[in-house]
């Protein structure tokens, strides 16, 4: 059981949950994730740890309420409990001093990019942050990101805030400045990460991505989270979740993420009435 100590809707359908999990808070490193299961009948939902507060003994996750599972989780009030919290899972990000790092966060992926950018900065790197969303309302963690980045560039798909364009447009401009970039870290929806990798591959810049395939146990047991990395099958839970973006087979990942679309609609119909 983990108590919810804070809950905020930081954007439409986007919830931040701070949970009491002292052991995980003490142990976790940037890039790692937890699995949450709300109650007996709940799904096991993998979510990257966005923030951890060692002193308070809490971890924070940020997610979009898209399916029945995430809607149920997002409905747990402050003082309420999440039945099962497992972690920290996955390999931590390889944090090291390399020079200039560009951290790209798209949509909800910004919540995953943020702790890695924070750790990269703490290690002494120069961090350029690029965050984007479909529109102004969906943009998250701008203030937090600004504190850890040496430079933060913001964009919206529809131009409702700062500028119009995709994160890849901004990334191309940053690359065009000609200053050396040691590494790009890109986290967001599959089409965004795929597009970023295309840009960085052409520019010859090492790129790390964090993948969030469907998984159950998160400890290597089910193989549901398998991804194709350079023609080899890897399990995101134990081999990842971070991989060399230039080796990821994005089509396989995108397809596999759509496996339960019809089930999600059915579950949403059933649970819709109860939740809202």
């Amino acid at each position, binding site marked *: 059981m983990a108590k919810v100590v804070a809950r905020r809707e930081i954007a439409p359908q986007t919830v931040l949950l701070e949970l009491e999990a002292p052991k995980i808070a003490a*142990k976790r490193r940037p890039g790692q994730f937890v699995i949450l299961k709300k109650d007996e009948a709940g799904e096991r939902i993998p979510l990257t740890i966005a923030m951890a507060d060692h002193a308070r003994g809490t971890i924070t996750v940020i997610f979009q309420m898209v399916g029945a599972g995430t809607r149920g989780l997002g409905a747990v009030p402050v003082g309420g409990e999440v039945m099962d919290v497992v*972690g920290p899972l996955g390999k931590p990000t390889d944090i090291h001093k390399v020079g200039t790092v560009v951290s790209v966060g798209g949509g909800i992926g910004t919540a995953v990019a943020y702790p890695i950018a924070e750790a990269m900065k703490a290690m002494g790197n120069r961090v350029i942050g690029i965050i984007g969303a479909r529109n102004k309302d969906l943009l998250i963690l701008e203030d937090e990101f600004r504190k850890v980045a040496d430079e933060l560039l913001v964009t919206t798909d529809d131009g409702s805030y700062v500028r119009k364009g995709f994160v890849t447009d901004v990334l191309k401009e940053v690359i065009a400045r000609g200053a050396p970039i040691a590494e790009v870290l890109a986290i967001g929806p599959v089409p965004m990460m795929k597009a970023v990798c295309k840009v960085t591959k052409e520019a010859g810049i090492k790129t790390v991505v964090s993948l969030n395939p469907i998984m159950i146990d998160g400890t290597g047991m089910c193989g549901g989270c398998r991804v194709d990395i350079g023609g080899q099958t890897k399990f995101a839970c134990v081999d990842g979740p971070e991989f060399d973006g230039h080796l990821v087979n994005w089509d396989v990942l995108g397809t596999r993420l759509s496996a339960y679309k019809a089930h999600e609609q059915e579950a949403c119909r059933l649970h819709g009435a109860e939740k809202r």
Partner: protein
Amino acid sequence: MTPENANPSPAPAPAGGKKQRPPRQKMPEQPAAERVRNFNEVPYGYSADLAQLEASRCLQCKKPACVDGCPVCVDIPGFIKKVAEGDFLGAARTLKADNSLPAVCGRVCPQEEQCEKLCVLAKKGESVAVGRLERFVADYERERGTGELPPKAPPSGFRVAVVGSGPAGLTCAGELVKKGHRVTVFEALHKAGGVLVYGIPEFRLPKAIVGAEVDYLRRLGVEIEFNAPVGKSETVDELLASGFDAVFIGTGAGLPYFMGIPGENLIGVYSANEYLTRSNLMKAYLFPEYATPIIRGRRVATIGGGNVAMDAARTALRLGAEKSIIVYRRSRQEMPARIEEIHHAEEEGLEFQLLTAPVRVLGDEAGRVKGLECLRMELGEPDASGRRRPVPIKGSEYVLDVDTVVVAIGNGPNPLIPQTTPGLATGKHGNITADEATGQTSKPGVFAGGDIVTGAATVILAMGAGRRAATAIDAYLRAKKPAG
């Protein structure tokens, strides 16, 4: 359904000769046509009358060979004698002295390869039904017993961490707690039982029974920490540094193998672990009341010939498949599944495509499975395993019309602990190296047993390893200075 499976009344001894023995008694079970559409347990178990009659068949050998065949050395004639006398609770006491999970073993042990194989009566064709009697006694005690606990040694002051709550870990924990040690089991999942809850289906091992056996261990004093994937949540070294005097690792064979054929990442291709975990642990067969979904295939191919393959293929039927097909590259003789499981599967209408190897999974535009291309095989010379090696027949490719494929070709060792425990020696496949008799690993105070050491095997072998390790851990602790 065959007539012999119709719910039998006790089969009496043939009239005539005074030395005539009654035949081996059948267990009543759900008719095949009914059970393929539900997840209820297949056999109903013996009635008291049937159990006593079956027990009366035991010769009470002076030197019982059956006990030699039991990995945990249950006093088989001892408990059977009490059944014959109608002292069912006494039988349970005898059984539980050596076996902490009798209701599980009575259901999933391959008795035909162990105790029953060595039964003197087996020479005449019909061994005593040890497994069915074990199951009867355990069920009787659970349902009507007083819940009495076996005697425990006085507290030793030592603490032991057991990693994994599968058959090896639970057995080791139960034995250690009886010896007076304080035991904490660390389980990565949210339920205890390991493969007993995520792998073996409800219709073969009801989860309520696993739950009752786990509760029994908790009443004995075993503590269980859930959601604790050791290696990630805490390392073995951290456990040793935080007050545990010894650690037992029973993390099992939990990393599914895939075949490496094209199309294996299409939607609708599952490892047996994932398919069974969704259905069993997460109760996807109750979707959407339970939130975890599963693809209910119309035509399902399961690749492999072991018990796990049978479990997956029979689960597919219960999820509503019109056709559930076992695809196995060798012939029936080489199938590693228990005879009883193959028999049950056949009754339920499973189709067997033997001497058949999958070559490629075919998908549609949406990336979903639409077929499985296979190749016919023939048996050649024996290979390293002594089984005749399957050899492809050229040009024999054909396509099976299926929309779901379950890969049940085995599992490798789970990597979380070997990766995070310096000084822990592993073999070339990543299994933990441990002494067979004691479970001692290369790291002092650290013991291991079950599938993580041997590779995928059976529940009872894992239990045997857990039990031997418990004896060794007890000796190791008592040789140390007295605790605190």
